[in-house]
């Protein structure tokens, strides 16, 4: 089994797709960093050349004054308290909040790429893992060996999981290193807050608590990884079902883009929430952005994704072990 995985990994590396993914990501991150840098510059210009520390100090005091007002609701108070803590952290650690550090940039980059960019990168790897064996004809050589079919497919699947983990790490490293050159590498311990609830009543922060940013980033990466595994498994299934790599890629691409479009316009079509594409933005639940369709929660999205994932796995293995190879 171990040998099989090694073999698959070797094939994957020899195909140099990971390097291509790395290059694409580097170029994109450079672009985004530059865009972010421009935004920061215009923001600074708007604020004037005054010392940001005084402005921040003033903001903190203003918020504190609002906090002591007994008439504001408790959940809003909680939000303000967290804001004060964050601002005080920036002040104490000499970080200008208008200029994000590399950890913040990385976090945002991951959060924004979870539903389209990352799945595309994963797809590049996943969609030809099996179908390329067909198109090159090497599948026959592979299957003539005295190894059970499911083992061959399983080794390919494990390779896919490893590649996904590697790509996510690459993404994190690339965005951290490139943006760090411009924005500085500080800010790992900046306070982040979690535990918002978006309910029918609106924004509820009563369960919010504060954790250092690196823990938040770890969580972000964790859910990004899960979403990537689900998309990877789906592309893997398509790769098993369809011989042509290009057609397989097209299908997954269409699904992903449909998801991106749908999440912008659904909200009244509630059964759309059972599509996997609309449940991809798991990071939104962590940072408290409202979900595309009301009533969706983290546990709901995880459940939907898990069902799609299991279904894809089941079909892949079912079909591959029964398929006629010619």
């Amino acid at each position, binding site marked *: 089994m171990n040998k099989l*995985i*090694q073999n698959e*990994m*070797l094939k994957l*590396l*020899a195909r140099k797709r990971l390097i291509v993914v790395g290059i694409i990501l580097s170029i994109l991150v450079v672009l985004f960093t530059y865009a972010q840098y421009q935004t920061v510059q215009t923001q600074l210009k708007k604020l004037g050349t005054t010392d940001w520390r005084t402005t921040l*100090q003033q903001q903190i*005091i203003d*918020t*504190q*004054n*609002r*906090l*002591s007002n*007994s008439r504001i609701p408790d959940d809003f*108070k909680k939000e*303000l*308290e967290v804001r*004060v*803590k964050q601002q*005080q952290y920036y*002040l104490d650690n000499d970080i200008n909040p208008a200029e994000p550090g590399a950890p913040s940039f990385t976090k945002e980059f991951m959060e924004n790429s979870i539903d389209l960019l990352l799945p595309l990168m994963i797809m590049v790897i996943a969609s030809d893992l099996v179908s390329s064996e067909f198109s090159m004809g090497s599948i026959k050589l592979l299957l003539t060996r005295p190894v059970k079919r499911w083992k061959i497919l399983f080794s390919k699947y494990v390779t896919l*999981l*490893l*590649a*996904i*983990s*590697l790509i*996510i*790490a690459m993404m994190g490293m690339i965005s951290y290193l490139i943006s760090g050159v411009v924005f500085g590498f500080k800010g790992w311990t900046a306070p982040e807050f*979690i*535990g918002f*609830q978006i309910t029918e009543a609106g924004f509820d922060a*009563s*369960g*919010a*608590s504060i*954790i250092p940013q690196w*823990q938040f980033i*770890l*969580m*972000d*990466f*964790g*859910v*990004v*990884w*899960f979403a990537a595994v689900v998309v990877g498994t789906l592309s893997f299934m398509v790769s098993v079902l369809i011989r042509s790599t290009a057609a397989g890629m097209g299908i997954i691409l269409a699904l992903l883009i449909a998801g991106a479009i749908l999440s912008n316009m659904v909200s009244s079509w509630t059964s759309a929430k059972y599509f996997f594409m609309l449940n991809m933005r798991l990071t939104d*639940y*962590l940072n408290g952005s409202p979900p595309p369709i009301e009533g969706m929660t*983290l*546990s709901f999205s*995880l459940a939907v994704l898990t069902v799609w994932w299991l279904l894809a796995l089941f079909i892949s293995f079912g079909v591959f072990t029964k398929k006629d190879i010619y």
Partner: protein
Amino acid sequence: MCEVFILKKPLSIVITALSAVLLCVWLGGFLYAVQTNLNVQADESKNTSQDTGKKSQAVNNEKDLKVVAVGDSLTRGMGDETGKGYIGYLTDEMKAKSKKPVIVQNLGISGQKSDSLLAQVKTYSVTRQLKEADYILITIGGNDLFQGGQTLVDFQPAAVKSIQQKYLHNLEAILSHVRSSNSGAVIFLVGLYNPFIELENGKDTSQVVREWNYKSAEAAAKQIKTVYVPTFDLFELKVNDYLYTDRFHPNSKGYRLIAERVAALLTW
């Protein structure tokens, strides 16, 4: 082609191992995220049930302790990261010790001077609230004396003298008005500390503040059940440990000190 493969073998093993480690890390992060978020949800339901418990208790009790706080930014709690100020900490303490529900009205206005406080306490709604109070807390004079630090920077004894005269006049009027609107409540007049004690002319400024406090205490002594609460000594040593980054208002620690001192004077 063959050569490339041979070269790549050890590298591929390293990459595979690395990927396996990363897989575990991301899986860990994922489980952590799920666990934390579900925990938060569970905690929340607990919290809400506690809250309703408290509320029903409050309804059951008839008699409660009313506290009215008037004054400047110290009453407001400026500089405290939690926004509580000494009033907030004092309230916490009272709630912990007293069986009765504690109701606090914080009427502090940042930057308020003695003349505007006098105008404030004379308004109908404030007088009405003062009438119902069991404890009345006052912080005033800091802005009269310091004027954001300006008075003590260009330090002129004559100017300070005239400011002090005006302040004392206002203070006496404030205290007598409060007393006449509520004869039963205990009034606490919280004194000044010297935030500039560690600056160059700290000795001079301290002397001015001491004098100021002495006169305030005298004014308080003229009324019954009126207690002057000194804070000068609290901030005398290590003043910077207890001040907020603006070096003027107390921080959380400083406010806690003031609250403890007032709390020690409360009788049940």
